[in-house]
Each structure stands twice: as structure tokens, then as C-alpha cells.
């Protein structure tokens, strides 16, 4: 990226912030040949995550994590707040979309062999993100505080109780008491709203830094063709593909 020296606010900003270089690093990086729509699943997940964050932040304006009022506050969102059903539905369906998309993204990475050197750490961070997303789904499920939410959480935390030796301790830790009740709801709310989002943002940032730093892996088919090309051209010199170093 050539540094532009000149007048104007954008140049002033760029000389201090270097945003053009950052923009180029993120949006104008080289990508390998042979990519398809499956390679957009990660970006799709990021998009839905941002949507979830936005709608979640706004839902917090009305939602009340208190067993006496939680359900009523949601009825209020549904029946009295402008665009309430829309915003809540986006968050509701977005949650399912997140889980579906991270799984599809993981399958793509697995079957394209993208987790191999040098991208093992990206994969590991990705697996952490998968569990964080599932934890988001689990904690968010209780918040409507209806029968389904209550009993799903009762069953889910019962499962934790089945862990040998420390099961009942973990169960109490999750529920904030012997049964799902007054302390469970604020607990799940805090985890859903504060603990998990902080971790998610941290690991998503790390994941993206790794993706940008290491580049997208060449799909196996395209890599094979590149290798063939390189072998045919071998006497002449190293091909551009070979010069780039290891790719997938």
C-alpha cells in the first residue's frame, strides 16, 4: 500500500491512523483461486454475531431479569414497543442461525483441510468460539422465563449434575441454588449479557487477526492444479504459487 501524502482530512487521518493500510489488509488481501460460497460462512457468522449484539443491546432496554417480571417485560416488548416483535424475532432466529452457521463453517474448515499448518491455532480458537456460541444459546434460552425455558434449563442443569464427584457442586454453581429459581435468572442473564460477550469479542478478534495474518487456505483442488503448474514449469524457475510459501 503506497502511503499517500497530501492535503485533506482523509490524508490527515490516514497519516495518523494508517486506516488505509488496515483497510487494505482486511478487505484487499490476496485470496487463493477456487474459493466458493462455503468460504463466506465465517463472514456470515460474524455478520449474524454483530446483528445479535445490536439487537441484544437494544432488547436490554426493556428486558427485566427478575422472575416476577421477566415474562411480562417480554410481553411488553411484543405488544407495546415499536418494532418490538421484529427486534426480538431477529435476536431469536439469529441465535439459531449462529449455531447453524458456526457448524457449517466448522464443516467447511474440516473438509477443506484448512485447520492444517499453519492454521492450527485458528482452529483451536474457533473451537473455543463454538463452545462460547453454544453457551450463549443455552443461557439465552432461559431468559424468556416461560415453561419451555424453565424446564429446558432444569433438564440442562440436571445433566451437569450427573458429572461424577463435582456434579452437584457444578449444578449449584449454575443454578445459584438447589433448583432453578430466583437466583438462576439474573445469573444466566449476567453470563449471557456480560461474561460471554466479553469472551466472544476477545476470541473473535484473535480469530480474525489469525485469519488475516495467515490468509485463506487454498482449496485442495486449486492447490493440486497449482502444484501441477509448478511441476511443469519447474525448469524455468519458482512460480508465484511456490514463492508464496505453504498454502493449505
Amino acid at each position: 500500500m503506497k502511503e499517500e501524502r497530501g492535503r485533506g482530512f482523509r490524508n490527515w487521518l490516514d497519516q495518523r491512523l494508517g486506516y488505509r493500510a488496515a483497510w487494505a489488509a482486511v478487505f484487499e488481501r490476496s485470496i487463493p483461486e477456487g474459493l466458493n460460497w462455503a468460504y463466506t460462512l465465517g463472514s456470515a457468522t460474524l455478520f449474524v454475531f454483530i446483528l445479535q449484539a445490536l439487537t441484544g443491546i437494544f432488547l436490554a432496554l426493556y428486558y427485566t431479569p427478575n422472575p416476577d417480571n421477566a415474562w411480562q417485560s417480554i410481553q411488553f416488548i411484543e405488544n407495546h414497543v415499536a418494532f418490538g416483535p421484529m427486534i426480538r424475532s431477529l435476536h431469536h432466529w439469529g441465535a439459531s442461525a449462529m449455531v447453524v452457521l458456526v457448524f457449517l463453517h466448522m464443516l467447511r474448515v474440516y473438509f477443506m483441510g484448512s485447520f492444517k499448518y499453519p492454521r492450527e491455532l485458528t482452529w483451536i480458537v474457533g473451537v473455543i468460539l463454538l463452545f462460547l456460541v453454544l453457551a450463549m444459546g443455552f443461557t439465552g434460552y432461559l431468559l424468556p422465563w416461560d415453561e419451555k425455558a424453565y424446564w429446558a434449563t432444569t433438564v440442562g442443569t440436571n445433566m451437569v449434575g450427573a458429572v461424577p464427584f463435582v456434579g452437584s457442586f457444578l449444578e449449584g454453581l449454575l443454578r445459584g441454588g438447589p433448583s432453578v429459581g430466583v437466583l438462576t435468572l439474573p445469573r444466566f442473564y449476567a453470563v449471557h449479557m456480560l461474561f460471554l460477550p466479553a469472551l466472544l469479542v476477545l476470541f473473535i478478534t484473535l480469530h480474525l487477526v489469525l485469519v488475516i495474518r495467515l490468509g485463506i487456505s487454498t482449496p485442495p483442488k486449486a492447490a493440486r492444479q497449482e502444484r501441477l503448474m509448478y511441476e511443469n514449469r519447474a525448469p524455468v524457475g519458482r512460480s508465484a504459487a511456490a514463492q508464496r510459501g505453504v498454502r493449505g
Partner: protein
Amino acid sequence: MAPREESAGLRHGDGGQQDEARLSRRSLLSWMIGGSAGLIAVVLGTQLIGFAASPAFEAPSSDWVDLGPLDAFQPGVPKNVQFVITHRDGWKEESKAASVWVVRGNQGTNDVKVFNGHCTHLGCIYSWQAATRTFDCPCHGGEYTIDGRVIAGPPPRPLDALEFKVSGGRLSCLYQDFKLGVSQKVPA
């Protein structure tokens, strides 16, 4: 690296035509992406702002109570009307039962009095006695005339007349409770 574009001579275009082709493809795509992003931002942003600002547009709750058609009230015959008032504060709803006495006179449609159904002494429910043509309170013997003036007992002030209006032949009143046991009519 994009060998496909390179082989088509589009990446480092040296001919004007190719340059133009490269520009239009790239800019078309970025316009499409930017346009979609902008559309999503506008649609979502509008809804989020509307969602957040929603309570600010809420009309202040009014406690006007519909008391039914004016013709249902006969001049000189007080009539009791009972209703439930619902006061809404966010998702919190408080309901309470209330009643008023409607007294119509002979001087046309605006000759109406609507009395709060509580005795001004300590809030008991008084009722119309057709035999004596008085409003009698059973608790401490308070008595009022058909106009609400105190004629006997401890009530410190007349019956509390409420604001009313007649529109489209229907009578409604602005229900209000007042401080009990004092001679001044002060909203509670």
C-alpha cells in the same frame, strides 16, 4: 493473488478498454456490497432507534372513563356506575375498581354532575336513598343532598364532583380520587 484475473489481463490492464472493464466490475461489486450494507443499516437502524425511542412517543395515559350513553341517565334520578380503572406503567398494570354517581338535572345535556363514589369523610361507599332523596353513607352517618352538599354527619366537604364531558351522546368522566377527611378538595 488472482491468476484468473491476471490471465484475462484485467489486473494490470494496459489498454483503456481493459482498464474500464476492470473498473466497472470492481466498482459494480463494491456498489452492490456497499448498497446492501447501507440498506441493512438503514432498515435495521430505523427499527432499533424506533424501538429505543418508543416510550417517548407514548401518549400520557388519561383516565377518562366512558360512562355510557347520556340518555341512560334520567333527570333527577341518580345512577351508580361501576368500572375498573387500569393504570399502565411499562409492563406493570394496576387495576382497581371504582364507581361514580351520575346526577342529571333538567337543564339540557350539560346539566350533569358526576360524583366520586367515596364519602369525603373516610372513603366509604355511600348510596342514594330514594325515600329520603339523600346520599347516605353507612359508616358514620354522613348525608348529602342530590347536589352533594353535606346535610348531616362528619363529612368535612361536599361530594367530590369530577370533570366530565359529553361527546357523541356519550358521557365520560375524568376519574380522580381526592384526599379524605380534609375540607379542601386536594387530589390524592
